[in-house]
């Protein structure tokens, strides 16, 4: 009896193994499964949802035309709640259990950094609007090689800061104060500012950190005011940024404020109210363009998601479409082959001309970016 049961178990196990490997073979011909890690809840959700929507629109459009390599594109979405540990768990699950061939996101810097650091384990291209700081794409700084698996389509912090510093220099601003988020998103920006100022001329007279869940920004606002800067640069997401702006107003500071493009969003306008007016930031040139392609995208996005596309929507749509083009050119969705193809990307996107090479994995350059000013709930070219 025991022997028979043992044999039955072995036979059953063999059949199950054969069946699962058979289904894996079948799956290789099934839909193209792409993972998306988005910050769908929490403080960064306006960007995360925009990222997901951009990819969704691109995938739907291609599916309507017959799919990728003749197969349907299937998005497997996970919410990382803006938390790096949730993001890394999601990335492992997507790559190893769900067997996705690429991962888009995460958008929050700390999470993007954590997932990028695992790229050796994940072994799939990691693309999209991945956190704005340099270490996500270039772990050893811009002088070093990029992470081979990471391809970013987003206006990075250094590009934004350089544009803002150039604009500030044109206004004669020499003394800069920076209030930055006390984590992997904000801290590298101090270096970016230092580097930009050493080229354009100017100095940092105050640098204050603020926690992302800080209750109050009075100490930082008063320290900045005491340094008497020509301009204040704010580098954090909407909630703490609005608290800084309120504390500065309360302290009676009349200094012009420049900020990260994170503030160009309806949520910041709601939190900061009239205090948002006059804040200078950056945007993509294409957001203000009107041509057949951009208008078609805008209309499709609006009718599908009922809101206007934001900078993150533009970037993530381009990222998805250039990925599909790379898969098409490689004639396979095999992650390594697609990765190699991605390094030869020359893609005319909505955001501009995106070029990836073995040394350059960052898609958006200074030429794609322009200065805007917030006026009454809208960002207008400055």
């Amino acid at each position, binding site marked *: 009896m025991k022997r028979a049961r043992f044999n039955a178990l072995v036979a059953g196990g063999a059949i199950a193994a054969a069946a699962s490997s058979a289904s894996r073979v079948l799956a290789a011909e099934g839909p193209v499964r792409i993972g998306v890690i988005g910050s769908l809840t929490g*403080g960064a959700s*306006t960007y995360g949802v925009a990222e997901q929507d951009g990819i969704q629109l691109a995938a739907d459009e291609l599916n309507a035309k017959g799919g990728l390599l003749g197969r349907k594109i299937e998005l497997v979405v996970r919410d990382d709640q803006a938390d790096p540990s949730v993001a890394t768990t999601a990335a492992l699950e997507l790559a190893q259990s769900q067997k996705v061939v690429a991962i888009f996101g995460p958008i929050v810097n700390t999470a993007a950094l954590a997932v990028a650091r695992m790229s050796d384990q994940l072994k799939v291209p990691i693309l999209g609007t991945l956190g704005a700081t340099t270490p996500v794409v270039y772990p050893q700084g811009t002088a070093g090689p990029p992470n081979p698996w990471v391809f970013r389509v987003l206006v990075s912090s250094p590009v934004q800061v350089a544009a803002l510093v150039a604009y500030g220099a044109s206004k004669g601003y020499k003394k800069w104060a920076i209030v930055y988020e006390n984590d992997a998103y904000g801290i590298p920006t101090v270096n970016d500012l230092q580097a930009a100022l050493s080229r354009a001329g100017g100095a940092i007279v105050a640098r*204050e950190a*603020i926690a992302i869940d800080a*209750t109050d920004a*009075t100490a930082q606002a008063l320290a900045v005011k005491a340094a008497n800067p020509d301009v204040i640069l704010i580098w954090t997401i909407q909630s703490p940024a*609005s*608290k800084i702006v309120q504390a500065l107003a309360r302290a009676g500071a009349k200094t012009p404020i420049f900020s990260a493009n994170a503030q160009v969003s309806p949520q910041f306008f*709601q*939190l900061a109210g009239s205090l948002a007016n006059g804040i200078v930031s950056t945007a993509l040139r294409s957001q203000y363009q009107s041509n057949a392609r951009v208008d078609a995208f805008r209309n499709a996005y609006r009718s599908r998601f009922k809101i206007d596309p934001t900078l993150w929507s533009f970037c993530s749509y381009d990222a998805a479409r250039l990925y599909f083009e790379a898969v098409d050119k490689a004639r396979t969705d095999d992650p390594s082959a697609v990765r190699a193809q991605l390094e030869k990307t020359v893609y005319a996107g909505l955001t501009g001309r995106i070029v990836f090479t073995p040394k350059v994995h960052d898609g958006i350059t200074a030429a794609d970016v322009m200065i805007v000013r917030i006026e009454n709930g809208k960002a207008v070219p400055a």
Partner: protein
Amino acid sequence: MGTLGDLIVQVVVIGCVYAMIAVAFDLVFASSRVVNFAQGDFVAGAGLIAAILAVTHGVPFGIAALAAGVLIALVGMVTVSALILPVLPGITQRSVSDLNEMRWVLTTIGVSVTLEAIGGMLTPQGAIGVKPLINGGVNVAGIHVPLYDIAIVVVAVAMIAGLHMLLRHTIVGQMLRAVAADRYGSAAVGIPVRRVIVATFVGAAALSALAGVLIVPFTQGSASGGFALGLAGFAAATVGGLGDMRGALAGGMVVAAAELMGARFVNSQMESVFPLLVMMLILVFRPQGIFQSGAVERV
């Protein structure tokens, strides 16, 4: 005086906020020796509920605040009845000989995590801004003091004074002091210990809710502020003497001063660390709190 005056005003206001949260910790700890790790989330949760009702659904703020208070008090009721009392030694027959006296640590942390997760799901667009009910301010010696800040200080002081009167001059207060001094002895003389613990828990939840809706114009309705608030409130309670409400205001001021002055004059990157440093110093050198003389009476 200028900006230093601004800083001092803010220290006082934030100190009062932390004091209100500290009082909630004190109440719960006094009656049950439990530190409710979800207390900060009760504060933030109440603010969030009020913000959602008032801003997203247009409910008048007073009603929204009331609804938030009721909901959070209910959460407190469920937490204490279903999750704390059953694992508290000496309360249920089952656990009277239980050697594990600290299960409430895990349950309150669990409540905290759950509340933050629910809050996150309720705010897909991130934090919700709430406008203060009172605008405008007064000028005191060149410092602009918003009227709303004065209101916060008034409410905090009134709350603590009111609690003080409750404890000293009512039967309920006497019962609470008895339970705080000796839970088992109180039970022996017929004081309804379970009911006292539930009452303090629910009362602390209601007080946290009051603090939460009061400060939501500054903290913004969000799920994630609770942990930081709870930590600061706990530090304030410890500095003032955990379980002793008389030290709450002073504890709050000390913690707020450490946080804001440290951020302003030492290093803003370590802002959230200063309150904890102060708390650790107190725990090492004067664990009963700066106002306790080491006497037996706890409340």
